[in-house]
C-alpha cells in the first residue's frame, strides 16, 4: 500500500461503520457492464465501476505472432493491459511500464484458466484492456471486462472470471477499495474467481494482514466476485437479446453455451 500518511481530517470509516463514500464494508461500488461496444473487435465490453472506466476488446482466435510463441496444442491467451495517459491525475507516459507488464501477465493466466484453449491450437486470442479513467481496482475491472469481451467474441469458455478486491482500511476489512482507500489503506487483495469451479485464478496481496484478516478478506472478496458475476451475465444476456433481434448476426456459440450451463 502507498504508505501515505492519512491527512488529519480524513476518516476512512466513520462512527456508523460507513466508508468515505457512504458504503458499508462489504458493499461494492456501482458496477455497470455493457457488452459489444466496439465494431472492429471480435468481442468487446465496457465497464464503469465506481469512477473507473475500462474498455476490453478481443481479437481471435487468430494467427499467433511472433511464430515462436505458437503452441502446437493450444491457443495462447495474450492480454495487454494499458492505462491511457490521461486516466490518472498526473499524466502517465504512454506505453507499458513494469506494473502493466505484471498485470497483463496475471490477467492472461487467469483468463487462460477458463478458455478452451485446446480447441484452437497454434492460434492467439488477444485481449486488450484499456483503462480510460482510473480510480483503484483497475485490474479487477479489466479482468471482469475481459471475460465479458471473450464471451462476446464467441470464444468457448468453461465459465467467466469475476474479479473484485478486498482490503483493509482503518483496521477494517472491506471490499472494493476506491482511490482514497487504496492510498491511505493498510492492505489490498485483488481476487479473480471462477464461480462454477469455486476456484481462485488471480490472487495478489500487499500490505499488512493478520491471518484472520486475510481469511475474512478472501471470503469477502469471493462473495463480491459472485455479485460481479451476476452483472457480467446480465450484460451478456442483454447483448444476446440485442443480437438475436438483429437477424443478420448469428447467435454467438459461447453465449448459448453460457446460458445453458450457467443456469
Amino acid at each position: 500500500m502507498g504508505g501515505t500518511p492519512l491527512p488529519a481530517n480524513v476518516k476512512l470509516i466513520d462512527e456508523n461503520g460507513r466508508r468515505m463514500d457512504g458504503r458499508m464494508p462489504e458493499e461494492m461500488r456501482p458496477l455497470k457492464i455493457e457488452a459489444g461496444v466496439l465494431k472492429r473487435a471480435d468481442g468487446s465490453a465496457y465497464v464503469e465501476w465506481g469512477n473507473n472506466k475500462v474498455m476490453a476488446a478481443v481479437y481471435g482466435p487468430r494467427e499467433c505472432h511472433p511464430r515462436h510463441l505458437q503452441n502446437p496444442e493450444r491457443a495462447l491467451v495474450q492480454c495487454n493491459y494499458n492505462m491511457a495517459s490521461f486516466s490518472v491525475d498526473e499524466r502517465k507516459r504512454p506505453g507499458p511500464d513494469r506494473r502493466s507488464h505484471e498485470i497483463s501477465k496475471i490477467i492472461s493466466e487467469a483468463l487462460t484458466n477458463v478458455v478452451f484453449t485446446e480447441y484452437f491450437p497454434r492460434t492467439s486470442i488477444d485481449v486488450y484492456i484499456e483503462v480510460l479513467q482510473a480510480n483503484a481496482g483497475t485490474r479487477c475491472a479489466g479482468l471482469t471486462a475481459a471475460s465479458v469481451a471473450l464471451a462476446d467474441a464467441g470464444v468457448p469458455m468453461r465459465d467467466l472470471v469475476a474479479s473484485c478486491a478486498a482490503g483493509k482500511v482503518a483496521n477494517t476489512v472491506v471490499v472494493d477499495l476506491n482511490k482514497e482507500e487504496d492510498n491511505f489503506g493498510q492492505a489490498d487483495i485483488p481476487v479473480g474467481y471462477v464461480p462454477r469451479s469455486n476456484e481462485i485464478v488471480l490472487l495478489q496481496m500487499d500490505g499488512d494482514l493478520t491471518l484472520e484478516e486475510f481469511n475474512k478478506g478472501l471470503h469477502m472478496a469471493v462473495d463480491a466476485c459472485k455479485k460481479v458475476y451476476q452483472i457480467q451475465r446480465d450484460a451478456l444476456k442483454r447483448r444476446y437479446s440485442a443480437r438475436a433481434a438483429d437477424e443478420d448476426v448469428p447467435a454467438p456459440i459461447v453465449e448459448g453455451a453460457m446460458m445453458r450451463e450457467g443456469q
Partner: protein
Amino acid sequence: MGKDVVADLKRDYISKLLAKGVRVDGRKFEEMRPLTIEVDYIKSAEGSARIQLGDTQVVVGIKIDKGEPFSDTPNSGVLTTNAELIPMASETFESGPPDEISIEVARVVDRGIREGHAVDLSKMVLEPGKAVWIMFVDVHVIDYDGNLFDAANIAANAAFKTAIIRGSKAGLSEDQPLPVQHQPISVTVVKIDGKILVDPTHDEERVADARLTVATLENGNLCAMQKGLNGAFTMEEVFKVVDLSRRIGADIRSRF
C-alpha cells in the same frame, strides 16, 4: 495472397458503386458520417471528449501540468500532441512504439491546432522563461473505421472547449478555463477512380489512390494541409478540396 484477393474484390465493389455515384454506406460523395460528441468524458483529465464518427471512436484527453518552456519560446505554453493507435482499435494496429501512421496522425492533428492557434499559448505562461503550462493532447483511438485525422481533430477541438487549467497544480487557488481562441477544423477526402470522397471509411481508405486533409478557420482561412498516399491531385482538385473543407468545416464548427 488471400488478403490481396479480398482487397481486389472490395476495390471492384467500391468502384462499381462509385461509377453509379453511390458509396458503400449510401452516403453522398461530399457527406460526412453521423457525428456524436460527448465532452468531459474523462474526469481524471483536465479536458476530454469521446467522439464517434460513423464507426470510428476516438477519446481525446487533455492533461495540463506545470513545466518549463522551451528556451526559444520563453513566453509561450507548450503544446504536445500524441496519438496512440492501440491494437484494441483494429487488427492492423500493433503494440509498441508509435509507427508511421500514428506519428502522421499526431503531427497532422498537431499542425491543425497549432497553426490554427486553437489555444492561445501566450496566455499559458506562469513566469516567463521559467514556468509555463504544458498541455498534452492525447488521442486514443479505440475503434477504427477510417478518417482518424478528422475524428481526432474534432475531438481535440471539443475537448478544448470545456477544458480547465487546475490552479492547484501550480499552487494557485483558482482554476481557469483553457484560453481557447479558434477552432481549426480539418476535413479529409480520398480520391478513388478520380472521384473525391469526404470522410472516408477504413475500406475506402484502403483502396484510395490519394488522400488530402485541409484544416480551416472560422474566417475561412487555411491553417494546415497534408496530402497522403501514392496517388496525385491536380491543382483543380486541390482547390476543390479546399473549398469543400471550408464549407464542411463551418458545418462541423456549428456543432460545438
